[in-house]
């Protein structure tokens, strides 16, 4: 099997579903690029090149560049989804949700309930998240806890190239509105990814390491850091079960609760701001439903309650890393 980057995996997922279903259209700012300009078409293929090449195969009718009007085009994607298309809209950075969130959480997410079950809204919003690119406070946030908070949305956070392809294909085939989070620092990461289409179901966690001492739950980019910490500690005889829930909504509660029942210890790693985030969500789940199994305090590893700083040294301190995870594991294992 060929090694492919996260970027390529996502691109393949989009291409395969566009080939398969003529109702799938993609849209976003410069997802092709070059509209009205004298030079090349498909000049950008997305701000970081993720959608490059799709214009050539599918044309301007299905690869839709947009003006900078997130409310209008994310809302249009929602409206198109409710009327027969299966749009994949790109919200370039999730940080920009503040100019268009209404169309996602009050419109797309609630159609089905408000309309008494009569709406089907197969919308996918792809979006970039996360720190690490020195992109500062307004281009580095995670914000997936806010989407997870909203009933009616599904939220996907792939942790690798293989995961990204399978989960994105699932998202496009899914009949509910899905927000798909791509970590901007992960696009170049490679692993083996099949050429053909495959799906990874939502709400089924992936256990990336098995161990006896501590259960570690981590999301997105944090999964690899958790694995690194686990690998290191394994050499000292502290073994961890590392869980990648893949989707925060739906959440595979059973796997988390079972694994905590087995180890009796929990560390949750979340790159999002610490208040009302996924670390609190998982910790609370366990404190309510696996309390009797717990042998030690739950430990949350998150950034501090600050905006994301610009300066490299500060940003590196801000992001939870393998060292902090390692220390948290040691603490609960002690």
């Amino acid at each position, binding site marked *: 099997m060929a090694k492919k980057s996260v970027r390529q995996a996502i691109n393949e997922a989009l291409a395969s579903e566009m080939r398969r279903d003529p109702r799938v259209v993609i849209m976003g700012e410069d997802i092709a690029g070059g509209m009205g300009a004298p030079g090349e078409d498909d000049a950008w293929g997305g701000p970081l090149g993720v959608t490059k090449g799709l214009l050539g195969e599918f044309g301007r009718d299905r690869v839709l560049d947009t003006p900078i009007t997130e409310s209008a085009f994310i*809302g249009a994607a929602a409206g198109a989804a409710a009327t027969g298309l299966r749009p994949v809209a790109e919200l370039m950075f999730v940080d920009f949700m503040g100019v268009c969130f209404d169309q996602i959480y009050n419109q797309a997410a609630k159609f089905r309930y408000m309309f008494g079950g009569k709406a089907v809204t197969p919308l996918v919003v792809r979006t970039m998240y996360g720190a690490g690119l020195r992109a500062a406070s307004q281009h580095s946030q995670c914000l997936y806890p806010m989407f997870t908070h909203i009933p009616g949305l599904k939220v996907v956070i792939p942790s690798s190239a293989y995961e990204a392809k399978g989960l994105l294909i699932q998202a496009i085939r899914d009949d509910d509105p899905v927000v798909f989070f791509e970590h901007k620092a992960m696009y170049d990461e490679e692993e083996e990814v099949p050429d053909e289409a495959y799906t990874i179901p939502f709400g089924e966690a992936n256990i990336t390491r098995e161990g006896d001492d501590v259960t570690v739950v981590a999301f997105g980019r944090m999964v690899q850091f958790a694995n690194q910490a686990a690998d290191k500690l394994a050499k000292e005889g502290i073994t961890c079960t590392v869980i990648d829930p893949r989707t925060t909504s739906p959440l595979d509660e059973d796997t988390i609760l079972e694994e905590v029942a087995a180890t009796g210890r929990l560390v949750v790693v979340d790159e999002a701001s610490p208040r009302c985030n996924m670390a609190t969500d998982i910790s609370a789940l366990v404190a309510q439903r696996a309390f009797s199994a717990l042998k030690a305090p739950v430990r949350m590893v998150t950034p501090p309650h600050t905006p994301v700083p610009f300066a490299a040294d500060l940003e590196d301190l801000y992001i939870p890393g393998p060292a902090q995870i390692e220390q948290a594991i040691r603490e609960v294992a002690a």
Partner: protein
Amino acid sequence: MQLSREDLLKAYRQMKTIRVFEERLHDEFATGDIPGFVHLYAGEEASGVGVCLNLNDNDYIASTHRGHGHCIAKGCDVSGMMHEIFGRADGLCGGKGGSMHIADLERGMMGANGIVGGGPPLICGAALTAKTLGTGGVAVAFVGDGGSNQGTTMESLNLAKVWNLPVIFVVEDNGYAEATSSSWAVAGDAVRRAAGYDIPAQQVDGHDFFAVNEVAREAVERARAGDGPSLLHVKLSRYYGHFEGDAMTYRDPDEVSKLRQDKDCLDLFQKRVNEAGLLEPAQFEEIDRDVATLIDDAVASARAAPVPSAQDLLTDVYVSY
């Protein structure tokens, strides 16, 4: 264009249905049995009906918080609407949506909307679907004078133009957004705003069904022909408060009674049709009787209908989860 007798009858029936529906809701609300926020469309009937008479089930509309009239004009089941507004299990939305969220996608009605300016982006999407799948459909966004100031509305004008979508924006300017006059809150005007996006636009007297119907027909034809979006600035009047419970102290005390006397769209319609000898008085009377029965029955059956059951709380959040 001269409308067929059938269309005239349909238009009158719909306008009358809306009027009686809304006046009845006004009374029912006063009994305390209708929950929540209710915004009545009475007085504005010629707009919704004048526009929607040009549409079919293949076409979509997106409505506002003041949505009952648009629903009826687009062909939603009137009894189902009444049940919904009373919060009944067999309402159009199973009692989960209520007045502010009535929808019927099968009729091309994408929902009233609790968010001012919520509809225009959605309608761009319906238009995109029509364009992409080649359904021949068009899409209409109704928006108030107040809603015409929302960024979402203005972004949608631009997007519809840039994407050349079959959209008609209908700005229903009833002079007020809540207790605020549009003469104060809307700088410039809608027609000139549309011109700023190269979108053809016209102002029209929204008390005059025929005038609305005519400009809407042109706009719908333009959209169906693939010639892109249009905007209609419809000047009209609401007869009741912003919502039920509004004392309307911001209006002249006799403002509404004067409007009812001089500008009533149903009166104007009848007068015009009578003068032209297009329909018989008896035909109006028959419709009036039908409508009275329809609304009476709708209220009676809504009052008698069962409320949702406890398990309904948890259903319809996702298709699958």
